[in-house]
């Protein structure tokens, strides 16, 4: 595929890096200094303005399949998409950083008249991701698929967890749920019946909405009832988005800590039930005086990795059981989790996943990318040429598993004697390496 990316910032470079292996990628940016970043990638870098027709013509926009506008300026992105749409007929994806271009339900408001096919707001996406994790007690990652009928939760096992009691076969997890993966010592594998979980393992559970409620109660008992105390450090774009999402929820009490008094006043004006505190999230005395240690969840979304890390570690010291932190630089992701932060997420990552999802479309689509890209959740429509067979006859793989079969609007978590037939839609969990093989298998092009 031919892909044009305007804007070589964090999102642009991450996208280019991921896509360059399989696609022809052009990157346009008006800052020549940025070219260095792309020198090591197998992409074509063009210096110039993304709103100039000449520059866009150099990148062969007329024949491009996908056009991504990812500069820091919303208006530039919109104009670039409009011009690209006039020159050819690429799928246009426009990044924005304000609510102005989206309506209440998150769809684009009136931007289709500029020929924009999809609007993406990375900060909002990150806030939505964090919200899902915050509202799942004990979980360190959470996703929903198929409009909410299928859920995924990830837990890190601590001493005393009920999951440690015996091998999986004897655990009797609620019907309709399935442990699809275990991550132990940096390796992701699909567990078997005899697998015994250990302290420190991360487990990924998928299942139907109803079953997952039971799973939550099983894995994290005592979470039912009572309002969760959530503390947000940092009232920037992500902090506001997250607070607004949680503001009306009857299940959480939200506090947001913001250093700048003027920004704090703006937050207090926008939020109804959230308590806005004027202070520094990295000031231990302040955190102690506000009893931040008694929060159930702390979310640190300052726009600065160092301060985020400090705030998160302080919160951990004060005894907050779950700490979620935003990471700006992707290279820091692993480090953050290693020093004891439960969940580290980046806005850039959320946007890249979303765009990848868009680009790898077709009969298989990427629903989620987990564990820094090591694992994927795919939705596949089984090819008509696929010979129907029972799951147990397919053999077991260490790196992929059919998690859910979608039939007639219902989600079924399959067992060995369930049958997969041509035309079924299935949700498959797989490691990154196995994704292509899984796709080939079910779409009939492989064995």
């Amino acid at each position: 595929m031919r892909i044009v990316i305007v804007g070589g910032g964090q999102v642009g470079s991450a996208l280019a890096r991921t896509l360059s292996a399989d696609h022809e990628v052009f990157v346009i940016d008006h800052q020549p200094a940025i070219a260095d970043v792309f020198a090591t990638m197998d992409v074509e870098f063009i210096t110039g303005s993304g709103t100039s027709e000449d520059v866009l013509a150099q990148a062969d926009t007329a024949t491009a399949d996908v056009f991504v506008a990812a500069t820091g300026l919303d208006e530039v992105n919109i104009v670039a998409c409009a011009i690209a749409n006039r020159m050819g007929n690429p799928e246009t994806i426009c990044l924005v950083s304000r609510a102005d271009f989206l309506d209440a339900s998150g769809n684009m408001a009136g931007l289709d008249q500029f020929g924009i096919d999809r609007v993406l707001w990375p900060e909002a996406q990150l806030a939505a991701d964090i919200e899902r994790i915050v509202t799942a007690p004990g979980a360190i990652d959470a996703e929903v698929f198929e409009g909410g009928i299928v859920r995924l939760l990830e837990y890190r096992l601590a001493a005393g967890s009920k999951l440690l009691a015996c091998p999986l076969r004897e655990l009797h997890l609620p019907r309709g749920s399935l442990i699809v993966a275990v991550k132990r010592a940096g390796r992701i594998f699909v567990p078997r019946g005899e697998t015994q979980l250990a302290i420190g393992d991360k487990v990924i559970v998928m299942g139907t909405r109803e079953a997952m409620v039971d799973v939550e109660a099983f894995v994290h008992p005592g979470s039912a009832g009572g309002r969760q105390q959530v503390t947000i450090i940092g009232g920037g774009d992500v902090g506001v988005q997250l607070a607004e999402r949680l503001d009306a929820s009857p299940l959480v009490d939200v506090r947001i800590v913001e250093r700048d008094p003027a920004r704090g006043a703006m937050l207090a004006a926008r939020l109804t039930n959230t308590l806005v505190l004027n202070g520094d999230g990295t000031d231990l005395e302040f955190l102690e005086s506000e009893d931040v240690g008694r929060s159930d969840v702390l979310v640190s979304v300052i726009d600065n990795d160092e301060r985020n890390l400090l705030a998160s570690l302080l919160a951990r010291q004060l005894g907050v059981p779950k700490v979620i932190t935003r990471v700006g630089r992707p290279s820091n992701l692993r480090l953050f989790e290693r020093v004891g932060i439960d969940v580290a997420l980046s806005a850039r990552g959320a946007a890249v996943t979303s765009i990848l999802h868009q680009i790898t479309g077709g009969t298989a689509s990427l629903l989620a990318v987990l564990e820094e890209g090591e694992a994927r959740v795919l939705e596949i429509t089984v090819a008509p040429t696929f010979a129907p067979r029972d799951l147990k006859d397919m053999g077991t793989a260490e790196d992929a598993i059919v998690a859910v079969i979608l039939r007639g609007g219902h989600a079924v978590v399959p067992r060995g004697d369930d049958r997969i037939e041509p035309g079924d839609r299935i949700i498959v969990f797989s490691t990154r390496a196995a994704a292509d093989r899984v796709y080939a298998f079910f779409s009939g092009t492989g064995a």
Partner: protein
Amino acid sequence: MRLDLVVHVCGVIVRVFGAVFLAPLAVSLVFHEYRDATGFGVAGVVSALLGHLMRHAGGDAAQDAIESLRRVEGFAVVSLSWLLIAHLAGIPYVWAGLGPIDALFESMSGLTTTGATVLRDFAQFGRGIFFWRALTHWLGGMGVIALFVAVLPRLAIGGRELFFAEASGPSGEKVSPQIRRTASLLWRLYAGLTAMQTCALWLAGFSFYDAVCHSMATLAAGGFSPHPLSVAGYQNPAAEWIIIVFMFIAGASFTLQYRALARGNARILGADDELKAYAGVIVVATVLLAVALAGWHWSESVVRTALFHVLSIITTTGFASVDFQLWNDQAKMILLALMFIGGCAGSAGGGPKVVRHVLLARYTLQELRRALHPRAVLPVKLGGRVVPESVLQGVIVFFLFYLLTYAVGVIAIVALGADMVTGLSAMAAALGNVGPGFNQVGPMGHYGDMHPVSRVVLTAAMWIGRLEVLPVLVLLRPEIWRASRWGNDSRSPGGR
């Protein structure tokens, strides 16, 4: 303050007010009351002449400066022209036989929509006089100056400060960016509602004359009735229900009603914090009053009577459908408390206004939360919007001045010989523009037997209460009366 400008603008207003006397003049002629008609004629001529003289006293410079009216000058114009108009509107009463203090009391009571009367014997006065009492209510309810801003092109721009100085409530709200159009639209709504109520009352069995007088008194939240026994004199439950509905409307913000009507969207009403609080207080007070009156044995007449009086007092109308002087102290206490609430901002009702209570309550709650979280940012919000600190300070200052004025007034009245319940209730009723109080000044009684100085004090209280304290009290500052020279500021384009 530019005194000559203030005099000039007052003159403009007073001169036009002369034309208002034509209406009662016509009514008196229709009923063949020629002596009263003469009184209205004289009052009209005096107004026109006085206004003309004052206009010229202001001089030519004032003619051009009217658009540059400043805030404090707006306060002065409104306070002083209200005082002048009250004197002029009292002339017909003097002609009809009242003493000067009583005449001023009655006319101030009418214009400020108080509804407190000094008339002992209603039979002594003609229909023209009773129509005049109702008309003064009606003019004062939406605001005399708002009316003139709407009709006088000269006040189109300078009228902005006048309009807000006269309007009720802590912050100015408009229905159109243009002040003249705002005033005109609100007056049309007000007139339309009055016409509706007149028809309804007429259909319910009132004579056309009674229907007009009661409608004007209801929508202005006034309370004068041509009948000596007020609404109780008619014994007409249907009419009481009609008056209940229109009292509720009169006590709710006309600005809000106009918006809901213009957009055809009733949800605007449901989303308004003040209206919700207003309705909530009415419901709670009605239940309490019904319990105080009849225990839990409720009948239609108990509910109607309770609701009628709760609305009559909270909207500061002051009608009575029974003699509530005969009620127990529990019931009277509820009414006295309601006198300190008042209608909504931007309504015809007087008193401190519901929205100020809402703001004060929220401010207090936020301060309590601040004790727990010293570093929290805790804005006070109304309808989802942050209320500026300056408005909150204004609310607190308003309550301070209101209560201070109240205390001074009560002490004066009681010192001059009234009993304490009379003193407490009369001052509350006058300052809140309610009308009737308890004991001597109960709904079937009158203020005529009070000490003459008390009557003057109460007259002043009505004036202060209607203009919401600050515009009047600011006149007591001596530096205001130091006439400033005509400086560059009055001529320069941005010199407001």
